[in-house]
C-alpha cells in the first residue's frame, strides 16, 4: 500500500476517532454544545484538504469538526473549545458549531445554513483583487444548495471568474428530510447552467479517489481563476445532531447504512485501523487532558471582542 493512501487513511481515521471520543464523552455533560458529527463523511475532508495549501481558505457549516482537523486545526484547542474552555480556538464562545482557526485559514463555520458559501466567494474575490494565488473552498450540505444565497453565490463567482470551489456534501438528508422531497435539480448538473464546471463523485467513502479528483480541480481553479462545483455523495452515520444512532426511525433505512459500512475503508481495513489507532488515541487523550485541565473563561470575556 502506498504512502499517500496511508496518509489519507490516517487523516480520515483520526477524524473518526476524535468524533467517537466526543460521543464517548458527551453523556458526561462536559461538552455542552449541540454536536453535528461527520462520522461516515470523513473521507471528504481528508481528500479535499490534502490538496490545499495552508494559505487556501476553507469555510464550512456547523458540521465542521472534520474540516477543522483536515485543514490543520489544533486538536487541543478543539477539545478545549468543546469543553467551553478559554484555551479553545474560540475561547469557549464558539462551541462545536463554530470552530475556526485563523492560523490555518479555517475561516469559519456557521449554524445558519448556507451562510458561509457567499463568504467563501468573497474571500475568492479578495484573492483575485490582491493577486494572492489562493483557492477558497465553501463546504455545505445538499440542503444548503436550496438557499437563494447558494445560487446568488454561484452566479457571482461565475460572472467574476473567481477561484472558489463549491463542495456539496450530499448526504441525501437535511435533518430528516430526504433530498428527493426538496430538490428539483441535480447540484452538479445545475452548476453548468451558470457556466460553472462541475464534477460528481459517487464514492464518498473513497478518500483516495476524492483526493485524486481534487488534485486536478484545485490546480485548475488556482491556475485559471475559475469556480468549480464538486458534488460528493456521502452518508451520515449518526443522527443529524447529537451522538445517537437513528436508523430505527422510519426516515431512513438500516440497509442503506449497512451498504455504506460495507464500503467504508475505516471499517473494512482492520489492519490499517489497528496500525494507527494507538498513536491517534494517544494524541486524543492528551487533547482531552488539555481540555479538562484548562480554565473556563473569566467573567470579563463575556463583554470582550464585541466591537
Amino acid at each position, binding site marked *: 500500500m502506498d504512502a499517500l493512501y496511508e496518509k489519507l487513511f490516517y487523516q480520515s481515521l483520526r477524524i473518526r476517532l476524535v468524533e467517537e471520543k466526543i460521543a464517548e464523552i458527551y453523556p458526561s455533560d462536559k461538552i455542552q454544545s449541540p454536536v453535528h458529527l461527520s462520522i461516515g463523511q470523513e473521507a471528504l475532508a481528508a481528500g479535499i484538504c490534502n490538496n490545499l495549501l495552508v494559505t487556501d481558505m476553507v469555510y464550512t457549516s456547523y458540521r465542521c469538526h472534520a474540516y477543522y482537523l483536515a485543514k490543520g486545526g489544533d486538536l487541543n484547542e478543539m477539545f478545549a473549545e468543546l469543553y467551553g474552555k478559554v484555551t479553545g480556538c474560540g475561547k469557549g464562545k464558539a462551541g462545536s458549531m*463554530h470552530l475556526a482557526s485563523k492560523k490555518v485559514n479555517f475561516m469559519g463555520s456557521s449554524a*445558519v445554513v448556507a451562510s458561509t458559501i457567499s463568504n467563501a466567494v468573497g474571500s475568492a474575490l479578495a484573492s483575485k483583487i490582491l493577486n494572492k494565488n489562493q483557492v477558497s473552498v465553501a463546504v455545505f450540505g445538499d440542503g*444548503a444548495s436550496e438557499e437563494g444565497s447558494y445560487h446568488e453565490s454561484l452566479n457571482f463567482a461565475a460572472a467574476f471568474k473567481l477561484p472558489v470551489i463549491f463542495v456539496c456534501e450530499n448526504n441525501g438528508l*437535511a435533518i430528516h428530510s430526504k433530498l428527493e422531497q426538496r430538490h428539483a435539480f441535480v447540484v452538479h448538473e445545475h452548476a453548468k447552467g451558470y457556466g460553472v464546471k462541475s464534477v460528481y463523485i459517487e464514492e464518498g467513502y473513497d478518500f483516495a479517489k476524492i483526493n485524486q479528483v481534487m488534485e486536478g480541480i484545485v490546480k485548475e481553479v488556482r491556475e485559471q481563476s475559475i469556480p468549480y462545483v464538486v458534488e460528493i455523495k456521502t452518508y451520515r452515520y449518526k443522527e443529524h*445532531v447529537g451522538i445517537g444512532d437513528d436508523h430505527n426511525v422510519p*426516515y431512513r433505512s438500516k440497509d442503506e447504512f449497512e451498504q455504506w459500512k460495507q464500503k467504508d475503508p475505516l471499517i473494512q481495513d482492520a489492519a490499517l485501523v489497528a496500525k494507527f489507532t494507538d498513536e491517534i488515541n494517544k494524541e486524543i487523550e492528551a487533547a482531552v487532558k488539555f481540555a479538562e485541565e484548562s480554565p473556563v473563561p473569566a467573567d470579563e470575556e*463575556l463583554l470582550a471582542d464585541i466591537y
Partner: protein
Amino acid sequence: MEHNEKVIKYKDALLTSMDDALTRFPGTIIMGQGVDDHKGTFGSTTDLAKKHGAHRVFDIPLSEEGNTGIGIGAALNGVYPIQTHIRNDFSLLAMSQIVNTAAKYKYMYGGHFNVPMLIRMIIGRSWGQGAQHSQSLQSLFAHIPGLVVLMPSSADAVLESYNHAVEHYKGPVISIEHRLLYDYSFKSTYGEKDAAKHDPFSSRLVRKGDDVTIVATSIMVIEAQRVADYLAKELDIHCEIIDLHSISHFNKEMIVESVKKTGNLIIADTSWQAYGVCAEISRIICEHDPRMLKGPVVTLGMQPSPCPTTKKLEDLFYPDDYTFTMKIVEMVKGRGHGLSVAKTSLNETYKSFKGPF
C-alpha cells in the same frame, strides 16, 4: 389540586391549536422545515400530516425568503399558511418578505388586499445554543407597522391567540415561542365557561400586587411569577405582573394604571434591553407621565453581547432569579436594605435542557 383542574403542556397546546386550525378551516396549511417528521417541530406538529394529509402539512426546501413569499402568495389566494422557523435566528433570512411585503401589502395597495398568515418562530436557549441559535428578535418585528407580534407565555395564551389569528385576523401574525416553555405544564381554563376573557392579541394581568409592577415577556413571565411568589412569602413584597403577550399591540392603559398604583416598574424581557421591549415600555411611561414613578425604571435582559456558547459565560449572559429578586428588593426597600435573598434560579431548569434542538 382542585377537581376539574386541567393541566396542559405548552407543546400540547401548540399541537392542539395547529390541529384545530386544520380541522376547522380547510384552507389552512402548515408549511415548514421538518413539520412532518417524527420529531414534529418539537412535538407541536406531530402526526398532523398523517391526520390531515401531506398536501396540507408538508416539509419545504431550505429557502426561507422564497418560502415566505410563497406563503404570502398562497395567503393572497385564499389559503391560510402557518409557517415555522425552528429558530428565531433563521427568520432573518425571510426578513425582506416579512417586512417589505407581508407587513405592507394591505396598506401599500390601499387596503384592498389581506395577507392572513401565522409565522411561528422559536427562541433557543441553553446547551450551547450560541450566537446564532439563541436570539430573541421580537423588537425587530414589532418595530414594523403592519405586523402583529406575539410571545405567548402559557398554554392558554397559545390556544387563545392562535385560534383567534386563524379564525378572525386578516393580517400577518408573527409569534415567537420559547423552546424552554415547550415542556412546561400550565393550568388551563381555555374553552371553559368561566375562563378568563382576554383580548387574544393584547396583554394579560397575571398577578395583582401593590408594591411593584413587573412587565414581562415570554419565559420571563414564568420567572417573574417565581420571583413574585418568593417575595410575597419571604419579604412581604407584592408584585403585580403584566404579561405583555403582544409585543406590537400591548395594553398601555394596563401598564400605566399599574405603575400609577405601585410607582415601581421593572421590565423583564428575553432579549437585549437597547431598542427593545425594555426601551419601549420605558418610552410609554416617560411619554405618559414619569412622575408616577417613585424611582428609576429597572430593566432586565440579556447582556449586550452575542450569546456565548460556554456555560460559564452563558450563565452571566442571561439574568437569573437572584438578580431579578435583588433588583426588586432594592427598588422597594432601597439600597442597603440588609435583607438576604436565597439563590434559587430557573437556571437549574435551563441547565437540565439537553435538546432535542
